[in-house]
């Protein structure tokens, strides 16, 4: 490929690529993101390649391996163009039929299209599926249209147009002004205005300056950065190059956590291709602007996602945060002025340049503009990535898009903001989601994880989970975070184990205040948030654990017990055979009994007991009924067969 040396060259190339691609020709787009890979999409792709070859169609039908379109729950996902027929949960066995029926015969296979579980209504096109219909997918919508390993796919849909536009039409100051007018705020969690950050870095004294992409997405339950970096790396690179031009940087870094191997691979390839095409490197598009990008892999440390810690990690040091009174915009990477933004923030930049700041600012709420991608996961029917305008209510996201809670369970809370965020109860479901509203509720936007919890989730356990997580990940540099977390963990552990004491709640609250005021970085300062919000909204659950020694959600091992209801037990032997510690006593035609002294409360018997019997009961806060006397355990003959499982011991 010859280098592109001018904006006219770029447009010419774009036309050439488009001319080669007839939008009316069939194309099979298959999600090859990490989610669908986990669901076995590689076998589906191989089946398509083979099937098309067998039918002699390999030259007429394109196969496009794309990034993640978001609906992971229903993967592997296949979209057939030009009709935009969306097939879900596609297995290799389905492929020959798809080729003969849909690709050749233009007929739809009913069993593979989306069917509403409640109404039974079917949706053939991607855009008709309720999960997608209520979204506004400015960023994620392009994933299905391109193969991230092919820069020409990105160029074909208008890629690098924004870079060309600023290099030849905008002064750096005007680029910053655009981003400020658009009121783009940082998508990594803090929500700091991006334009202001760029401006301070541009105005800082020092040379060289650096720009950095933060793809160290450590928040558990969030994976939108992975989907963007994996699925459309060029959009991030283009945004980064625009930022570099605005700030006056000639070197950039993309920091990707090593837990995302596909994102690493696709980004390295994208950088290489952009260099080959003259869209990175020396004299970009003949403008005289030079910009080089290097990828750095993380080595597994949550705190490295903090901006100053991440800069330490790029320098090859331990990823610990630096004191906050020195701004990284003045003294960041190698003590030079540095600007760091999140993946999603960078990916929004080309959109703002192409469509204008006013267009961007017309989407969203007063204080939060544009769209935000959330990862909607946990106890919700349609799990996946959801992109909506800022200000969409939690209820719309969880019920209209997410399809509600599975198994007729009751919604309890939604956790947002990762370990620094909080749990929001049902009465606030109509809150419009933006940076400021979530903060008011004691939670935060964070990077966009949205974990739905139902009645089976214990809120004290959730608080303990996050504290445990942060205890592992605290770098240990400052005392309030290191010691504070350790003691929070100790107190929460004793509460969930049934050893909670009077005064524990007050102690938790007191420590939270100290940690917030005195920790070195945001990790420690926000570490108590999950404890504080669960205390604020679910104090009764804490009290039940401490005072009544009862876990209302029946989730905490230390406070539950299992027993077998003798009137429901059919002696099917399933629990008896699977108990890892042989705590179930019984036998053929003998009602089973749990030896409470041996039981480790792992719950295996509870899950193994066939639902039609429902004999294994889980209780909390009440005494375990005494076992049925041995002489009454024999079942009358004829009842055992119903068991289904069974067999000889």
């Amino acid at each position, binding site marked *: 490929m010859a280098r592109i040396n001018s904006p006219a060259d770029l447009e010419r190339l774009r036309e050439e690529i488009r001319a080669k691609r007839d939008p009316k020709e069939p194309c099979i787009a298959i999600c090859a993101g*990490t*989610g669908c*890979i*986990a*669901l076995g999409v590689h076998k589906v792709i191989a089946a398509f390649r083979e099937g098309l070859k067998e039918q002699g169609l390999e030259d007429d039908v394109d196969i496009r391996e794309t990034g993640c379109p978001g609906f*992971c*729950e229903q993967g592997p996902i296949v979209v057939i163009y030009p009709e935009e027929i969306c097939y879900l949960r596609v297995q290799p066995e389905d492929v020959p039929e798809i080729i003969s029926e849909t690709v050749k015969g233009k007929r739809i296979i009913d069993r593979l299209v989306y069917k509403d579980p409640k109404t039974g209504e079917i949706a053939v096109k991607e855009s008709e599926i309720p999960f997608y219909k209520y979204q506004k997918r400015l960023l994620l919508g392009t994933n299905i249209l391109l193969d991230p390993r092919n820069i020409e796919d990105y160029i074909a849909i208008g890629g690098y147009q924004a870079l060309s536009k600023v290099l030849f039409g905008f002064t750096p100051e005007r680029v910053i002004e655009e981003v400020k007018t658009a009121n783009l705020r940082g998508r990594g969690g803090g929500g700091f205005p991006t334009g202001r950050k760029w401006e301070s870095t541009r105005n800082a004294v020092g040379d060289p300056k650096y720009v950095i992409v933060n793809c160290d*997405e*450590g*928040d*558990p*339950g*969030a*994976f939108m950065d*992975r989907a963007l970096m994996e699925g459309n790396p060029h959009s991030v690179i283009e945004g980064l190059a625009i930022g570099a031009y605005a700030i006056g940087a000639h070197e950039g870094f993309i920091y990707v956590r*090593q*837990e*995302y*191997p596909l994102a690493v691979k696709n980004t390295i390839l994208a950088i290489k291709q952009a260099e080959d095409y003259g869209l990175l490197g020396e004299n970009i598009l003949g403008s005289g602007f030079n910009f080089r990008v290097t990828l*750095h*892999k*993380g*080595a*597994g*440390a*949550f705190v490295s996602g903090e901006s100053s810690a991440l800069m330490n*990690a*790029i*320098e*090859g*040091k*331990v*990823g610990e945060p630096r004191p906050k009174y020195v701004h990284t915009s003045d003294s960041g990477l*190698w003590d030079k002025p540095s600007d760091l933004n999140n993946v999603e923030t960078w990916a929004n930049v080309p959109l703002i340049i192409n469509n204008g700041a006013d267009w961007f600012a017309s989407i969203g709420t007063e204080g939060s503009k544009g769209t935000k991608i959330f*990862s909607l*996961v*946990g*106890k919700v029917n349609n*799990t*996946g*990535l959801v992109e909506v305008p800022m200000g969409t209510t939690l209820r719309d996201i969880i019920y209209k898009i997410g399809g509600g809670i599975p198994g007729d369970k009751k919604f309890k809370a939604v*956790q947002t903001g*990762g370990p620094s965020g909080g749990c929001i109860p049902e009465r606030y479901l109509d809150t419009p989601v933006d940076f400021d509203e979530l903060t008011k509720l004691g939670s935060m936007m964070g990077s966009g*994880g949205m*974990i739905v*919890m139902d009645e089976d*989730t214990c809120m004290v356990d*959730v608080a303990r*989970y*996050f504290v445990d*997580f942060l205890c*592992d*990940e605290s*770098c240990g540099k400052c005392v309030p975070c290191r010691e504070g977390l350790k003691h929070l963990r100790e107190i929460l552990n004793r509460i969930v184990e049934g050893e909670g004491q009077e005064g524990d709640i007050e102690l938790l609250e007191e420590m939270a205040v100290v940690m917030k005021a005195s920790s070195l970085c945001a990790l420690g300062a926000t570490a108590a948030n999950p404890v504080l919000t669960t205390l604020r909204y679910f104090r009764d659950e804490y009290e039940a654990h401490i005072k009544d020694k009862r876990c209302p959600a029946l989730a905490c091992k230390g406070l539950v017990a299992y027993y077998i209801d003798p009137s429901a037990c059919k002696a099917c032997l399933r629990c008896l055979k699977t108990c*890892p510690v042989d705590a179930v006593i019984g036998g053929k035609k003998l009602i089973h009994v749990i030896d409470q002294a041996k039981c480790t409360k*792992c*719950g*295996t018997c509870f*899950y193994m007991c066939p639902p039609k019997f429902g004999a294994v009961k889980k209780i909390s806060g009440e005494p375990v009924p005494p076992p049925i006397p041995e002489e009454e355990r024999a079942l009358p003959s004829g009842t055992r067969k119903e068991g289904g499982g069974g067999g000889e011991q």
Partner: protein
Amino acid sequence: MVSEKRIDEIIDKYEGEEGVLIQLLLDIQNEFKLVPKEAIARISTRLQIPISHIYRIVSFYNVLSLEPTGRHVIQVCLGTACHVRGGPRILDEVENLLKIKAGTTTEDLKFTVKRVNCIGCCALGPVMLVDEDYHGKLSPTDVKGILARYD
């Protein structure tokens, strides 16, 4: 056996660049399934970095290890989404079957078990990663069959 030649080859790739230590150690870890003492000494001599500094890095980051890891690395995800969907029960099952605790390796060096705080497959929780294979939507009863596929 740790090949000194191989260590040198890996260092050669990075010599002269600033801030390469972590990337270099990741390559070493990848090659030897641990960061061998010999490698630490060699890096220290060739790149003029104090041994104490290299140890600090290796002990700070989760991926780097001073102990040998097994032929297969099992990572059980305990991110929030996996946690609420039963991730801890998957880990219990793995630990029961292999009779080791998370963070350790079986005596025959076949499996290393780790708990990982989110691998970004949240929609498919609970998830477990064996080497590079993702296994999603797991129930504890699936674990035995999955482990049997690796030798």
